[in-house]
C-alpha cells in the first residue's frame, strides 16, 4: 500500500509518537554523519590532566578517565551503533527472507529442515547464543555483528514463511503458476513485493533490538574493544567510575535509549500507517 507523501505527512501529524520517533532517528543519523563537524575534539585525543572532569562549557558531557571528551565520543558512537544496527538487520532480513520464502514455497522436506534449524536457534535465549557464538569466533565488533545476525535470522525466516504460506494460496499467484512461471520468478515478482509491509515493520523494530544486543555484547567485553567509542563499551569502562562520576556512564546510555526508542516508535508508527487495520 503506497500513500502520497502528503497523506503520509497527514498521518504523521495525527500520530505524534511516530513523528517523535522519526525525528529521533533522523537526529541520531544526522549527528552520526556530521560528527566531525559537530565535535570540538578528536574522539581518541587523550588529555590526562583533564581526566574525569564534570560537565562544563568546555566539555558538555565531561571527560573520561583518559581525559577524552565524552560528548565527542558519544557523538562518534552514533556512527558505530547506526552502522551496526542497520547492517545486522539488513543481512539478517536478507538471509531470513531467502530461506523463509524457500521454506514456505517449497514445503515438504525442505520446509521441515529449514524450520528445524530455525527452532534450534530459537531454543537458545538470544543473549546467551550471541555470547556463545562471539566467544567461539573471538571477541570483536565484526564477530559480534555476525553473531547477532545469526541470532536474528529465524525471526525473518518465520515471518517470511508465514507470509508466503498465505500469499501462495492467492488467486493471482495460482494464476501465475498456471501460466507456467518459474517458482523463483513467482516468489521474486509476485510474493516478496506483497510481504514488504510486515517486513519493513519488523526490520525497523529490529534495528533498535540489534543495537541493544550489540551494545550489551560490547558491555560484556566481547564486542567493540576499547578505545573504540562504542556506547556499550564506554559504559563498561564507566561502570568503575559511575558512583562518583555519574556523567561518564549516564550520557552514552541516554543516547542508546533515545536511538532504540526512536526506532521502536518509528516501527510501531510504520505499522499503523501501512496497515490501517491496526490503527486504534
Amino acid at each position, binding site marked *: 500500500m503506497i500513500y502520497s507523501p502528503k497523506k503520509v505527512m497527514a498521518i504523521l501529524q495525527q500520530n505524534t509518537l511516530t513523528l517523535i520517533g522519526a525525528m529521533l532517528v533522523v537526529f541520531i543519523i544526522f549527528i552520526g554523519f556530521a560528527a566531525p563537524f559537530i565535535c570540538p575534539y578528536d574522539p581518541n585525543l587523550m588529555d590526562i590532566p583533564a581526566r574525569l572532569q564534570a560537565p562544563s562549557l568546555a566539555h558538555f558531557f565531561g571527560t573520561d578517565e583518559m581525559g577524552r571528551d565524552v560528548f565527542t565520543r558519544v557523538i562518534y558512537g552514533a556512527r558505530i551503533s547506526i552502522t551496526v544496527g542497520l547492517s545486522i538487520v539488513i543481512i539478517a532480513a536478507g538471509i531470513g527472507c531467502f530461506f523463509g520464502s524457500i521454506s514456505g514455497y517449497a514445503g515438504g522436506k525442505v520446509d521441515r529442515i529449514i524450520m528445524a534449524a530455525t527452532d534450534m536457534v530459537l531454543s537458545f535465549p538470544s543473549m546467551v547464543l550471541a555470547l556463545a557464538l562471539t*566467544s567461539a569466533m573471538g571477541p570483536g565488533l565484526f564477530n559480534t555483528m555476525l553473531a547477532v545476525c545469526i541470532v536474528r535470522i529465524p525471526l525473518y525466516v518465520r515471518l517470511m514463511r508465514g507470509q508466503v504460506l498465505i500469499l501462495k494460496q492467492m488467486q493471482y499467484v495460482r494464476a501465475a503458476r498456471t501460466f507456467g512461471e518459474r517458482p523463483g520468478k513467482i516468489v521474486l515478482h509476485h510474493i516478496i513485493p506483497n510481504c514488504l509491509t510486515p517486513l519493513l515493520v519488523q526490520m525497523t523494530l529490529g534495528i533498535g533490538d540489534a543495537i541493544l544486543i550489540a551494545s550489551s555484547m560490547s558491555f560484556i567485553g566481547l564486542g567493540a574493544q576499547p578505545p573504540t567509542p562504542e556506547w556499550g563499551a564506554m559504559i563498561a569502562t564507566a561502570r568503575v567510575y559511575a558512583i562518583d562520576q*555519574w556523567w561518564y556512564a549516564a550520557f552514552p546510555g541516554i543516547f542508546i*535509549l533515545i536511538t532504540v526508542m526512536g526506532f521502536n516508535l518509528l516501527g510501531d508508527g510504520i505499522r499503523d500507517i501501512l496497515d490501517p487495520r491496526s490503527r486504534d
Partner: protein
Amino acid sequence: MFSFRFVLKNIMHLFIVFLGVSIFTFFISHVIPGDPARMLVGPHASQEALETTRVQLGLDKPIIVQYEKYMVDLVHGDLGTSIRTQRPVASELAKCFPATLELTMVAMFFAVVFGIILGVAAAVNRNKWIDHVSRIFSLVGVSTPLFWSGVIALIVFYKLIPIFPASGRIDTFLSPPPHITGIYIIDGLIAGNFAVVISAIHHIILPSVCLAYVQLAIVARQVRSSMIDVLEQDYIRTAKACGIPRRTIIYKYALKNALLPTLTVTGLTIGELLGGAIITETIFAWPGMGKYVMDSISFLDFPSIMGFTLVVSFSYVLINIGVDILYSFLNPQIKGVEK
C-alpha cells in the same frame, strides 16, 4: 481430562530439542574456533605442548568420534574443566546456580505481578492518562539497555539516596544460612533466621527490579492488548447487560482469558531474564552463573562459557515445555488438537 498423550508428546519433543541444542553447542565449541587446543595452551606454548593437548582433548580424532565423546561426557554431567579455575565446570556452575535462580525468580515475580497490574489498568482505562503513562513506561522499558539501568540504579539508590546495598546477596557480617536449596530467602526461612531473610530481601530488590523492568514492560504490553481483545467480546457485553458489577467482570470473566497468551510470553521472558542475569549479576556483584560466565569471558575460558550456554539453554527449553503443558492444562480449547 489431562491428556497423557500430550505430555508424552512434549517429552519426546524435549528430547529432540535437547539433542539439537547439544549438537549446536558441540558445533560452536568444536567446529567454529580455529583451534581449541591453541586456546587452551595459550599463544606462546610450544608445538609439542599444543600437540599433546590436542591428543588429550581428542581433537586428532574424526568429528563423529569427538561428538560421541562429547555426548557421553554430557550425559555423565561432565562439562569439561575450567581453564581459569582448573576445576570441573559442572560443579562450579552448580555452586552458583541457586543465586541465579533466586535472582531470576524474584525478577520474574516483579515482572509478572506488576506487568499484569499495569496491563489491566491500561486496558481498563484505555486512552486515559493511566494508559498513556503505562505506554511510555513500557516504551522506555523495552528501549533501555539493561547494563545502563543497573548502573543508573546504583548511582541513584546507592549513592544519592542510600537505601539499597550495592553488591552481594546478604550483609557481609551475616553468615549464609545452612545450604538446603541454596536460595537464601528460603534457606533463611527454613532455618528461622529472619535477620538473614530480611538482609537477603534487602539485597535482592535493586538487581531484580532492574532485571525485571524490560520484561515487565513486555508483559504489560501483552496483557493490555489481550485484555482489550477480551473486553470487546460478546460474553463480556452480555455480562455487562446482565448488570454484573464491573469489578467482577474484569477480574472474574475477562482477566482469566486475557492471561492465557501472557503465559506464553512469560515462558519466553525467562530466557531473556537468564541472558540479562549476565549483565545484572556483573553490575551488582551477584555471585551467580552470570557473573561466573562474565569472569570466564575475560579469560576466554571456553569450557565454562559453553557449559553456561548449555545449562541455561536446557533450563530455558525445560521451562518452556513446562509452560506449554500448563497452557494446555489451562486452556481446554487446544486439548487434543494437533500442535
